[in-house]
């Protein structure tokens, strides 16, 4: 039986990445994700991997670009302001159709903001973090176990669709400790005939590039890429339903707030309030189908988030505004208590649908 260990969320990300076959980590310290880098600095030298503390976040993401273009699994990690710096490089990765993992352990913003947990990079992550028309896969873990599992999954999805993937966590998820059973080491890797590995004079050159000299070629690339995105939206949304069978009020929440919401829902049920939750595990692609289905059954939705209603917009789009979508939120590093979420459920119950 696989062994259980007690890990911090940040450590679970790092170890799961290693088990997924990632041997190239490039980072730059920033609270609250520094343990990812610290863990990698201890582990990578022992397994023949590369840990490199770059001179900046921008340098780190471009090193990821370099490794990704050779077909190897590569990653970087940072927290909100550092991710903003990486956006140029993420756009280049997307433009060159390169798979890579970017970990964002979010903290408060805008600006220098604060170091306490936040989910306010929701728009940044789900709308394409950088210039141009593109998406990245966005995975949202809600336990230390999922920090490991979704990191592993992110590498697989990134390779499958030749897209950058972002693991969108928050300061609490990064710092909290829970027992974890780590995934078995990856054994099967997808073929990457596009990788820049040297031709040995046996094939035409591969080039990792996002510059297209002819506008009609660039347009074709963009259309083709969005055909691939449509497939991702069809096949890859992940979510978890909690007590939704008879729910009249559907909470939508991810990450740390989904945990608080879960405690609140259990309390609400004791008061006879039929609350349930759809917890997105992928934020792009967003689980639109189960939400639209729920819209036909429930009276209202509550988006519980650590931002000013960023996810609420996606919930409203998914349910096509058929039912009211209320907002229960805190920002600036504050976390709603289960009691606050319970109050929102009571209020939604009074207001009806």
């Amino acid at each position, binding site marked *: 039986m696989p062994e*259980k*260990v*007690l*890990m*911090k969320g940040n*450590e679970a990300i790092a*170890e799961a990445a290693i088990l997924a076959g990632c041997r190239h980590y490039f980072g730059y310290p920033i*609270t*609250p994700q520094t*343990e990812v880098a610290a*863990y990698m600095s*201890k582990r990578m030298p022992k397994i023949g991997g590369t840990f490199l503390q770059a001179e900046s976040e921008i340098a780190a993401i471009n090193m990821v670009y370099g490794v990704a273009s050779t077909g190897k699994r590569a990653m970087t990690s940072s927290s909100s302001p550092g991710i903003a710096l990486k956006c140029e490089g993420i756009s280049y990765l997307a433009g060159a159709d390169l798979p890579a993992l970017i970990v964002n352990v979010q903290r*408060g913003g805008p600006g220098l*903001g*604060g*170091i*306490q947990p936040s989910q306010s990079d929701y728009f940044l992550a789900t709308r394409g973090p950088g210039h141009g028309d593109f998406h990245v896969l966005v995975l949202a873990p809600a336990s230390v176990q999922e920090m490991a599992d979704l990191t592993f999954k992110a590498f697989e999805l990134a390779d499958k669709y030749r897209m950058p993937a972002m693991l969108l966590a928050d*300061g*609490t998820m990064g*710092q*909290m*400790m*829970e*027992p974890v059973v780590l995934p078995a080491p990856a054994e099967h890797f997808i073929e990457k005939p596009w990788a820049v590995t040297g031709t040995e004079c046996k094939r035409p050159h591969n080039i990792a590039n996002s510059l297209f000299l002819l506008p009609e070629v660039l347009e074709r690339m963009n259309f083709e890429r969005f055909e691939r995105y449509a497939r991702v939206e069809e096949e890859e949304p992940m979510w978890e339903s909690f007590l939704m069978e008879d729910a009249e009020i559907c909470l939508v929440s991810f990450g*740390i707030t989904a*945990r*608080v919401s*879960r*405690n609140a*829902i*259990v309390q609400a049920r004791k008061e006879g309030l039929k609350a349930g939750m759809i917890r997105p595990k992928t934020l792009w692609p967003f689980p639109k189908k189960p939400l639209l289905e729920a819209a036909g059954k429930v009276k209202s939705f509550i988006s519980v988030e650590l931002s000013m209603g960023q996810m609420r917009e996606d919930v409203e789009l998914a349910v096509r505004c058929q039912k009211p979508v209320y907002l229960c939120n805190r920002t*600036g*590093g504050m*976390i709603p*208590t289960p009691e606050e979420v319970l109050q929102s459920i009571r209020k939604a119950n009074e207001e009806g649908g």
Partner: protein
Amino acid sequence: MLMNSYSSASAPREAGSEPVILQNPPRLTLFAGHYGSGKTNIALNYALRLRSHGKPVTMADLDIVNPYFRMEDSRKLLQEAGIELIASAYANTNLDAPAMPKETYSLLADKSRFGVLDIGGDDRGALALGRYVPDILAENHYEMLLVANKARPLTRTAADTAAVMREIAEACGLPFTGLVNNTNYGAETTLEDVLESAGYIRELSEITELPLRMTCIRSELADDARGRVEQPFPLHLQKLYYMLEPESR
């Protein structure tokens, strides 16, 4: 080599339900170890226990590496128990400023109080302790305890744990005097997990030539553990906002 004038061996050997160290506590007790080994929570429980014996207690949170989940979270609990708290002015704020609290020197100077010091994780966290070490060694009535958790990925073996210990001792310049077995998986820990770790801590004790001062055991399991673990220390887990209630899991 400086001899530590404190020796818990002078305490009565027939321990009741309490570790010997608590029956005759040193003036200063320091908890250091790998980050995430459980230092803060143990220090908190230890301070509360000392206080319940009627001792004047001051706690010092000297972890300036990690701004999350700080002693500051328990300020109210400590106040109610009549324990002084020394913590960085920036703990739990949005400022990531690794500044040691200035009041720490008062704890070293006022020898009428019992000090419980929570040291930052790993060698990096312990480095900042260095400036106080000459005073601690001069007074020479302390226990520097290594908190060890076999369930943590980088301290799975006694040898790896001993290596972390040496790095910490080298960084801060204060030699360790004892071990705390805090093998746990959080709220899911079973008595078997703790019993199974006895071999690990014995081996660590042999490698480091340090005695076992406490075996932490979640308070719900303390009754079952009686007579089965050495130096049992019941531990109340801090309830943190991210924890799922058992019925929500």
